């Protein structure tokens, strides 16, 4: 693998070259005294930040149904955001033709709900203050900038690199001055250890979700929950109004419909193959429900049985649309 060593401002330089063309946008993070957030840059980068230690939402959210032909876009985002981009590409929710996706090594993030966090995008959250890191980051499957077309990575000596993974990535690399050289040094962030299989039960679920108000914000902020019209918008699973009272009338039982379980378990199944475990759902939850634990845990288990990993490789088919004739014998009773 070859790549280029970079120094401060070099990526910005490359990106500016793209912008100067006039037909290209850059999506990344913008930093100012007030804080740090997603931003699309048009003519100039202003005070762009390559990294972001505060997590409010997953940038993939903005990419759903992005079919724009013509306009070129460079994404400089976290690995989890790029992974959700890759899944959206598989689901034809993004037209990747004119997009260059660059993933940047991530040192963990702190929830945007935590007050008084100093604005230091390069802060090594997991290294320096792990107790403040989000659950999702503490248990992240892929913090390394190894997904998308190119990656920005830090080696053990503290040197930043840009590494190309695709042809497009190569083009991006060519925008950066300096010689290409073989990458021999070890990178700072090692591959994540695979966590133990997530295990829970309905009692724990009931406890954790007792405050769920079914606002469905978790769904709305999920980068890979892409349906234009969710099944849970109808009365089918969650009877409301007449539908609810008809049900009560005919069944004689006055319990409220078991909406929570249905909604969350079915959604867990729906996103199981595409969930990147970013925890945007938990970030979005007004009730502070530990959603990541469940969605991340379930998706990792369910991807595991097909040795699939969401967002790893755009050429990897989503398991549910294919099969092997000789597999999963243990699933048969």
């Amino acid at each position: 693998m070859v790549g280029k060593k970079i120094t401060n401002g070099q990526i910005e330089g490359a990106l500016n070259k793209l912008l100067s063309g006039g037909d290209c946008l850059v999506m990344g993070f913008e930093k100012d005294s007030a804080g740090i957030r997603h931003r699309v840059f048009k003519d100039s980068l202003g005070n762009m930040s390559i990294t972001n230690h505060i997590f409010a939402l997953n940038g993939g959210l903005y990419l759903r149904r992005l079919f724009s032909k013509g306009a070129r876009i460079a994404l400089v985002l976290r690995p989890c955001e790029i992974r959700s981009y890759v899944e959206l590409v598989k689901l034809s929710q993004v037209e990747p033709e004119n997009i260059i996706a660059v993933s940047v090594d991530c040192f963990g993030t702190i929830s945007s709900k935590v007050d008084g966090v100093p604005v230091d995008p390069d802060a090594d959250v997991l290294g320096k203050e792990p107790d403040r890191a989000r659950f999702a980051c503490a248990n992240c499957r892929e913090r390394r900038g190894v997904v998308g077309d190119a990656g920005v990575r830090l080696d053990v000596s503290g040197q930043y690199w840009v590494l190309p993974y695709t042809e497009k990535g190569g083009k991006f690399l060519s925008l950066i001055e300096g010689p290409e050289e073989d990458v021999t040094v070890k990178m700072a962030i090692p591959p994540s250890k695979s966590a133990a299989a997530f295990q829970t039960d309905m009692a724990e679920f009931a406890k954790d979700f007792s405050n769920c108000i079914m606002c469905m914000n978790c769904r709305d902020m999920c980068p890979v929950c892409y349906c234009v019209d969710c099944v849970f918008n109808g009365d089918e699973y969650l009877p409301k109004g007449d539908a609810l009272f008809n049900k009560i009338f005919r069944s004689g039982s006055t319990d409220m419909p078991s909406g929570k379980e249905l909604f969350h378990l079915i959604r867990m199944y729906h996103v199981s193959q595409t969930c990147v475990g970013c925890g945007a759902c938990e970030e979005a939850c007004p009730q502070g429900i530990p959603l990541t634990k469940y969605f991340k845990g379930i998706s990792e288990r369910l991807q595991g049985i097909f040795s699939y990993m969401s967002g790893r490789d755009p050429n990897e088919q989503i398991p549910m649309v294919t099969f092997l004739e000789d597999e999963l014998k243990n699933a048969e009773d």
Partner: protein
Amino acid sequence: MEQKIEKNPEIVGFACSFCTFKASEMAGSLRMKYPEGVKLIQVPCSSRVDPAFVIKAIFEGADGVFVAGCHPGDCHFIKGNYFTRRKIAALKEELEAFGMKDKLRLFWVSAAEARRFVEKVTEMYNDIKEKKNGR
């Protein structure tokens, strides 16, 4: 009712109309016996079974749910049951994570296998009944 359910499990089965449902018909015409708690919903192919149905059934009070289709390779729709196997395998994994894996089973029963059908559902019924009343 509550009492009754406590004793006798309610089992909902999704049966492919080309094999398992036919087998169940044959089981009937051969007067084979199986518990009344086992009730079938006919689907054109096991691949029609949306895992959401299974989850819905479980949370509406089913003690067990099974999905039954043609043996791999015998699907009337050629490959449907291979997809079924993937879906159900994944769903089983999810249920297992919630400690409910014995609530769901996947059977292959061909149109000719009335006896197998009866054996499978009876076995499932009894296992679940034991657990229910074991507590």
